[in-house]
């Protein structure tokens, strides 16, 4: 079976190239989409995950920084600081705003820095990470997309801010995180005596959480991971269904490419399959020949697609700097299993045809 499958597959080089290329395209599409999804999901929490708070304290019903935003009075901070089970309290002030660059409105997530330095850039690439009044630290994707330089100024809500630092890890596709001084943040976001969240450090975070819930039952107390998960869920809820549909389409393309090739090969070689039936090959063995061909085409297509994906991602990133792509072993294994599945399903397409081949046809000249 292996001999016939290998010879049939490699004997038709043109068809093999088209099949492997088609599967590679499907694999590449799935890997890029998954890479994009994983990249987004991780990117969404990269900056927030770098904020060194054990607990996030927000308004009841709040949960993230985009959809369920909290607003609390600043005075509550003093009350929180008085609790002995809390080690340190800081504030999070942040909201997305629109700024105009070159006549086009761009979204930017403005975050106020804090004295306790809970909030720092994910990774400072150049300049300063601690903006003073009238200064801003922006993400490198924002800088590159808008052709800005260190030392340039941007205007946020009528206030001119000078770029003093460029950081990475703050790009979240639809916007990017920037840090300004607490005073500037209050001014441009209009939060004079209010904060969005209080950030808490505690020696015993879970114990502190229980006590906070008892002492401040009207507030929402979230452990760090829960707050990160809530923010990651924004990507999951909004983009996962789209990614899922596109992945299914790519999966179907893969099945169609392998299936059509194997189906065509079976039709083209139906006389040879008839000969094999006549000389004693069973239907199972003939299906085995088709399955082996589909699996080899699938594995070769996966290898090519996997090899080309980083290259395609790099090209995509050169065109669109905010393109984020990250792949782990789990995603790669999933796509490999999907490719094997594609091959198995594809090999079933010519099954009916194989079963119908009449071995008696071999006696026709």
């Amino acid at each position, binding site marked *: 079976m292996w001999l016939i499958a290998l010879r049939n597959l490699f004997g038709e080089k043109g068809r093999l190239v088209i099949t492997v290329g088609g599967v590679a395209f499907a694999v590449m599409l799935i890997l890029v989409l998954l890479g994009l999804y994983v990249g987004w999901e991780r990117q969404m929490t990269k900056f927030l995950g770098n904020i060194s708070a054990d607990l996030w304290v927000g308004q009841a019903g709040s949960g993230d920084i985009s959809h369920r935003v909290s607003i609390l009075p600043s005075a509550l901070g003093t009350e929180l600081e008085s609790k002995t089970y809390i080690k340190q309290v800081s504030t999070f002030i942040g909201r997305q705003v629109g700024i105009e660059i070159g006549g086009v409105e761009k979204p930017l997530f403005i975050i106020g820095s804090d004295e306790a330095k809970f909030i720092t850039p994910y990774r400072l690439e150049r300049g300063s990470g601690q903006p003073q009044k009238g200064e801003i630290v922006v993400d490198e994707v924002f800088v590159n997309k808008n052709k800005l330089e260190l030392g340039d100024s941007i205007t946020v809500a009528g206030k001119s801010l000078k770029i003093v630092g460029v950081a990475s890890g703050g790009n979240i596709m639809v916007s990017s995180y920037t840090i300004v001084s607490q005073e500037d943040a209050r001014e441009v976001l209009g939060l004079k005596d209010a904060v969005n969240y209080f950030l808490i450090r505690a020696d015993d975070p879970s114990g502190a959480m229980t006590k906070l819930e008892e002492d401040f039952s009207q507030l929402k107390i979230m452990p760090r991971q829960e707050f990160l998960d809530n923010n990651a869920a924004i990507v999951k809820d909004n983009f996962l269904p789209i990614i899922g549909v596109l992945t299914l389409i790519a999966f179907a393309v893969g099945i169609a490419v392998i299936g059509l090739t194997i189906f065509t090969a079976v039709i083209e070689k139906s006389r040879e399959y008839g000969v094999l039936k*006549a*000389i*004693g090959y069973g239907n199972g063995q003939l299906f085995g020949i088709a399955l082996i061909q589909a699996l080899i085409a699938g594995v070769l297509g996966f290898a090519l697609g996997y090899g080309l994906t980083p290259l395609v991602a790099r090209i995509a990133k050169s065109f669109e700097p905010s393109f984020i792509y990250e792949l782990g072993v789990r995603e790669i294994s999933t796509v490999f299993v999907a490719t094997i599945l594609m091959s198995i399903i594809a090999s079933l397409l010519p099954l009916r045809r194989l079963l119908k081949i009449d071995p008696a046809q071999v*006696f026709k*000249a």
Partner: protein
Amino acid sequence: MAILEAKNISKSFNTGTHTEVDAVSNVSLSVEAGDIILIMGPSGSGKTTFLTMLGGLLRPSSGEIFINDQSIEQLSVDRLTKLRRDHLGFIFQSFNLLENLCAWENVYVGGLGAKNRKSKAIELLKRLGLEDRMHQKPRQLSGGERQRVAIARALINNPPIILADEPTANLDSKNGFEVTRLLCEIACQEQKAVIIVSHDERLKRVAKRVIIIEDGRLVKEELGQHQKYCQHHKS
């Protein structure tokens, strides 16, 4: 003792509304080891249909076929496939080699289930004078060479019965003679039953019995010239 026996077999085909054509009518045949039977008749007389039924590739409308005393009518598709593999070797008019496989590989794939089939395939090709052509693809072989590869494929499982459909039709006289000689050798030296369907009168020289089929009916049976030809071959 009969190694293959056909008892009153008939085959009708439905060719349209309420129209049935009798391709084979009530034909019987008994074949023993070492027999060489030549089935002759005009085109469309039903001889290939008869051979196809003997090979278990087509079920008769009535009658019974026995191979090694076993009625093949009662066999499941899988068991019939296995019976074909173990008991029958096929040689076709158009060779029917797998075009992507070289000569030895074509013989090799015919030996499904056989032990040491690669060495057997090579041995058979050497015996048939193809030691220099083993790695050639069918398209690189002449008609005679292709038919010898097909004969090797038919022999690799060492089946007791060889069924050959017009084995010399696509060959020139020299290659036709060589294939004829090989079929005679297979029957005489290996005691295999060889059943040949052909228009080729030259094959009468190797046949022990000649059967004439016309309009699906066995109309005549005569002795072939095997004795004479075989002696000539030995000399």
